[in-house]
């Protein structure tokens, strides 16, 4: 394994006016490693990835790719340096076909001819899209179908497949599982593991410790614009990570979540709090329904009572 990190972030700071969004953040990602970036809302996760993907220039610090310092002029420049970012809800355009989404911004890969005869080779593009999706176990019968017809997890997978196909060295995933159900999240997580097997450096942003724990090799915790440190798997417990993310504040919430863990662990599965939450909601809805029915009955009796 090479010891030069595929991406090395050194003391990056980012200020927006008087707001210090990032304060001397450092992290290094090796090829074939899933590096989880954890943090609560407002910790600076989004700002960090936007800086890494060329959307914002950093106020201070440097980004080093395979040993060479780089300055990005924009998202396209970052892409050309092999840094592909998959955004949570901005990954795909629902009304466009799978193929067109797949090649969006990278149409040159399937351009035939030159000058006036230059054209988008739709047949080859369809073939490539279908093949690449098949590799990750999604059978797209008709690559011309709109991405909107795919499920949320599948859309994330198209975006990841696209990044891998176009030779990304670093894959930045912005909360790829947070909007997904349990089964879909596991599809995405499996593909994250596949990307690692292909020797990509993966930066996996999440606030779900379960998902991070399932695929992560290293964990960097951000809190209020600073890193609280980077930890290799096995040197830290899941509860400790969660504790750090919350930053010792809002202890009540934390306590409730830890209880959840204990319960889930006791049940031996990796059942997500999402499902537990849904079950609780269902139970509550049922209780409510019964109460309403009883009220109705009572009201009915009231009316039928002779004056």
């Amino acid at each position, binding site marked *: 394994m090479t010891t030069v990190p595929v991406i090395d972030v050194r003391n990056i700071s980012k200020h927006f006016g008087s707001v210090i969004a990032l304060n001397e953040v450092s992290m290094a990602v090796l090829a074939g490693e899933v590096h989880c970036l954890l943090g609560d809302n407002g910790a600076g996760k989004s700002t960090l990835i936007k800086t890494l993907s060329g959307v914002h220039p950093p106020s201070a610090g440097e980004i080093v790719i395979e040993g060479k310092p780089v300055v990005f002029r924009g998202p396209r420049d970052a892409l050309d340096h092999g840094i592909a970012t998959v955004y949570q809800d901005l990954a795909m355009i629902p*009304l466009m076909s799978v193929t067109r989404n797949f090649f969006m911004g990278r149409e040159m890969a399937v351009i035939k001819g030159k000058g006036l005869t230059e054209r988008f080779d739709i047949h080859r593009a369809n073939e490539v899209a279908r093949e690449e999706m098949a590799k990750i176990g999604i059978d797209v019968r008709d690559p011309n179908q709109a991405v909107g017809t795919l499920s949320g997890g599948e859309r994330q997978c198209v975006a990841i497949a696209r990044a891998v196909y176009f030779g990304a060295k670093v894959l930045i995933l912005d909360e790829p599982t947070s909007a997904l159900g349990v089964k879909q999240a596991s599809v995405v997580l499996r593909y994250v593991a596949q990307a690692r097997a292909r020797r990509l450096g993966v930066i996996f942003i999440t606030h779900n410790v379960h998902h991070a724990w399932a695929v992560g090799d290293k964990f960097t915790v951000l809190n209020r614009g600073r890193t609280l440190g980077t930890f290799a798997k096995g040197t830290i417990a899941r509860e400790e990570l969660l504790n750090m993310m919350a930053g010792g504040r809002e202890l009540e919430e934390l306590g409730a979540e830890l209880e959840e863990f204990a319960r889930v662990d006791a049940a031996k599965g990796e059942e997500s709090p999402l499902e537990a939450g849904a079950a609780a909601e269902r139970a509550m809805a049922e209780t409510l329904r019964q109460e309403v029915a009883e009220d109705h009955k009572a009201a009915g009796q009231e009316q039928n009572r002779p004056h």
Partner: protein
Amino acid sequence: MTAASAHPDERLKETPLMRRLMIRPELGAVAGAILVLLFFAIVAGGSGMFSMLGVVTFLEVSAQLGIIAIAAAMLMIAGEFDLSVGSMIGFAGIVIAIPAAEWGWPLWLCIVIAFGVAVLVGYINGMVVIRTGLPSFIVTLASLFILRGITIGVTREMTGRTQIPGLRALVAQDWLAPIFAGRIGTGLFQWMASAGWITARSDGTPQVPGIPMSILWWLVLTVIATYVLLRTRIGNWIFASGGDAAAARNVGVPVRQVKIGLFITTALAATLFATIQSLVAGSADVLRGDQKEFEAIIASVIGGCLLTGGYGSAIGASFGALIFGTVEQGIFYTGVNTDWFKVFLGGMLLIAVMFNTYVRRKATGGR
């Protein structure tokens, strides 16, 4: 999330043929055009609407609208509107007519200048929309009034009139004018007239001396626009810019350039419309092109463009324009009072939008 998502392949295989046809954006417009033509063939079949002269007339009306509708559709797919198209038509008309008819500049030079000015106007529209981040609806609504005001003000200031005649004589001598105001197949039509196959006037010249150039422009532009949208890199960028500008920018699509380019395209299309109309009519009028921006948008929407962008077709817009032209002329032939045309127009627009919304829901998986 849906329960079926665990078995995506099973679900994907079951796309019915009907639905696949339905999600073609131009389907509604093609079906509508066939319906409208059939309707008038039955109602006004014997009235001369489908004579050579009648057909060429309604095609010419459709063609002129089609030229601006195609550009409007491309811009709409990229997620923007250009309401200044109608004013641009009037403006381009006087940019050609004042130097040509009043100052004696060569007509071809005036036409070239008008197209140059269109690039500038389109660029300004685009830049203001991009820089301010305001909705293009508002920005171009402002340019609608500004351009019309400049047109009327400048023309009155310089000539004291609102109409500038005297282009007809210039058209006959100009080398560039025939590609806008000429007709093709004049020899063939003359021959057909002398053979008695088509209606001739008493002096032996055919009633229809040839196919107007506007129809050729319309067809060629439809083909080019469709090719650009479906088979080029820029086409993919246009759909992406309208579908989700932020997502497109994140993967490196030059959204700003695409949008500015399309604002320039609509201004150029308006100028082409103005050039054809002024040269064919032999005059320019400050009020030319009034409300054409709405007609172009209506044709685009009938043609399947979504007002929210990201979806639509140039073929659809062309058929939208055909429906428009057919009905506008057809109502005249049926003897129904033409006042009712606008009622039809509004109804047509409403039906088209409802149909498109339904189609989009189908296209994105019933959400």
